[in-house]
């Protein structure tokens, strides 16, 4: 009867269950698809899945922070595109060195994120509206700056190596995992550390749990919120660099819909849209679930339009499972 004050029970229940569920779902999919088709569990196909996850995964990392604050960022997709375009401007148009171009891409994303955060916390525009506005602004700017045409990186072959080269292949011959995947894993580790070990992470949770209480505790709520959106923007910028490098071009018309994939990954991973809880590991699993599903269904020759329908069903199922868990508490 005195169980209300013992911590052990609750730890297991609240955080781990959804992750276990999501992870279990991922494993189950692997098994089902492997049994259904011999082409699924092949090295080249697994690499394909990893590569397909990299961009969406990086966007979802940033979105995780925003969603834990009980906010939303609809602009990550088009900000990614804008960052890709700006990377193209720096490297191809202006002929700047590749590292500087990459930096420029990241800063473009961070800058857009900072504007999101400022509009939300200073102008008090709800995150949904503020980032919806940024979605259009970034989309429009991408088209204006690029002159509606793709920007190619043909003069700088090293740029393509950022995503498509393979450090692991150089070390272990034949083990060719594209750098894009390694960058995603690296970014996930950084995101995990920021979320769990730093002040920024702590305030991310605090804001989502009870913003008013955080404000009354003397925390500069506006500044930290700007920081969170800036971080999400920086991840979108990284996504832009990866996708530009992978395609060896900045495609100004790309990017719409990426924000929804990112949000879906976060939600499947057990981060609550009402804020206060969430994990990076969950988001990584969520991102993989989406690409495994897409890949597996394609191997089974399910038409692409049906893949989209099924993804939608998975999102709803995942959140329903989470809701059931919460209700039981």
């Amino acid at each position, binding site marked *: 009867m005195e169980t209300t004050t013992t911590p052990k029970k609750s730890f297991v229940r609240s955080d781990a269950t959804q992750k276990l569920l999501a992870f279990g779902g991922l494993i189950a999919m692997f098994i089902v698809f492997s049994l259904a088709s011999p082409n699924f569990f092949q090295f080249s196909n697994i690499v394909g899945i990893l590569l397909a996850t990299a961009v969406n995964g990086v966007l979802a990392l940033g979105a995780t922070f925003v969603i834990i604050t009980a906010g939303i960022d609809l602009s990550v997709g088009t900000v990614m595109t804008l960052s890709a375009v700006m990377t193209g401007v720096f490297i191809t148009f202006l002929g700047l060195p590749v590292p500087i171009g990459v930096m420029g891409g990241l800063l473009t994303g961070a800058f857009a994120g900072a504007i999101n955060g400022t509009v939300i916390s200073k102008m008090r525009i709800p995150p949904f509206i503020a980032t919806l506005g940024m979605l259009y602004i970034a989309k429009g700017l991408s088209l204006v700056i690029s002159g509606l045409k793709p920007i190619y990186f043909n003069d700088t072959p090293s740029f393509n190596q950022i995503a498509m080269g393979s450090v692991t292949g150089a070390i272990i011959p034949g083990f060719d995992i594209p750098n894009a995947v390694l960058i995603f894993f690296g970014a996930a580790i950084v995101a995990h550390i920021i979320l769990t070990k730093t002040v920024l992470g702590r305030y991310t949770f605090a804001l989502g749990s009870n913003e008013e209480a*955080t404000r009354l505790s003397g925390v500069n709520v506006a500044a930290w919120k700007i920081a969170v959106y800036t971080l999400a923007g920086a991840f979108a910028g990284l996504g832009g660099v990866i996708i530009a490098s992978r395609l060896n071009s900045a495609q100004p018309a790309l990017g719409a819909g990426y924000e929804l994939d990112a949000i879906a990954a976060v939600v499947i991973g057990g981060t609550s849209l009402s804020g206060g809880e969430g994990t990076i590991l969950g988001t990584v699993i969520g991102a993989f679930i989406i690409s495994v599903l897409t890949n597996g269904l394609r191997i089974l020759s399910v038409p692409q339009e049906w893949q989209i329908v099924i993804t939608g069903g998975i999102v709803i199922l995942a959140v329903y499972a989470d809701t059931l868990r919460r209700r039981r*508490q």
Partner: protein
Amino acid sequence: MDENLVLMKGIDKRFPGVHALDHCQFELRAGEVHALVGENGAGKSTMMKILAGIYAKDAGEILYRGQEVDIHTPKAAQDLGISMIHQELNLMNHLTVAQNIFVGREPRKGVGFWLDEKKLNEQTEQLFERMHLKLDPRMKVTDLTVAKQQMVEIAKALSFNSEVLIMDEPTAALTETEIEDLFNFIRKLRADGVGIVYISHRLEELKQISDRITVMRDGRYIDTLPTAETAIDKIISLMVGRTIYESAPELPEDTDQEIVLEVKNLNRGKTVKDVSFQLRRGEILGFAGLMGAGRTEVARTIFGADRLDSGEIYLHGRLVQITSPRDAVKNGIAYLSEDRKRYGLALGMDVETNIALASFNKFLGALGWVNNAKTRETANHYTDALAIKTPSIQQRVKNLSGGNQQKVVIGKWLTADTEILIFDEPTRGIDVGAKSEIYKLLNDLAQQGKAIIMISSELPEILRMSHRVIAMCEGRITGELPIAEATQEAIMKFATQRNGTSRDNGRSAASSQVGNA
């Protein structure tokens, strides 16, 4: 000569429609416990929120150690050494105890960006040791009882090493031993020279702990008195100012009225545990308890707003399934939320529409047209019958006072032909004068044969109004008293009876264990 730590003079504050503070003053010396008392809506909390930087004052000045200060944010207050423990809990439920206490002041390591979680927990442990509080700093706040959460709030305020500590109803959810611990701690702080503002309704407590008492009433400063030389009766008369509760309830002569509502073994999650009771025709049944006792949850479950896990609800002896508020209304049950602005009224619409809102079916003519003549007639009828003070029934409800808004809600449910009315804190936020009118209305309704459940956190209100009192604690009914035996002490004893095996009688005690297995 100026020994005052804090001096507030000529403080004025208006909210839309309310003059919350009218030229108020307050002073606090170092090393004193200064109680601030007054009825709900007297302006105590508003006054202290201005001192704590949460509200901006419209006029007046604040002197801190003789210097005029401008306290425009909570941070500014904290920097001066002023902390406030809020009445409504202000915690981040997803974070741990330690993380809550030191939010904004986390110990860092390295370049200042890294959290030092170990040190954070150590600091919290040291703090708890000083407070003689047994609590694991690593526990999540959401897993704590309300009383423990309150202690976390107090620990947080104390952790600022504040020179001024404002406590707004700190003991509302605490048990006797916890209160004693808190008082010992307050005495220690006082000896250390901390000035403590203590807002409370419990006057016996003030006698124990405070040095001076300031009384406020209706947004005005009334008087400041030394506690030792002041009788409780005197304080009460200053607080109330005028006789407001003229009519004591008229108890029903015959007690064998028909049972209208019977609830058996109602369970819902952690908040409602094995609740059983009966409600008779013409009866006002008072539900007493501390914050988080589960009274509102019981009401919401009966009303169908929350789904029950198990249990049975009988109306006139007939088992009914209530799974939504719609079912409840069809069965003649109304729930009047404590937050009537959010859940009870369409604020932007007029009195007439609000009164007709729950029963538009009655006013529909051919093709679904609303029969305006009929709604007008009904609205006029209830405006007269309930003495709703409004220029016309076309007046928007948001322009009415709290008491009249409450009457509109009552009118709405009477129009819907309800026979069971559940009032949740019926006089919260209603000014003192209008309270007696609401009380009279409740009495009239009971006499007309309505069955009434009244949830209230104010014991005097429970004692004044109820025919029978049920006390709850942590989701269980811990006691039931006929009004003749009900005293504040008896109710409080039940209301703080933790982990109680339900009522005195063995039957429900046994079944509660089954319910929890």
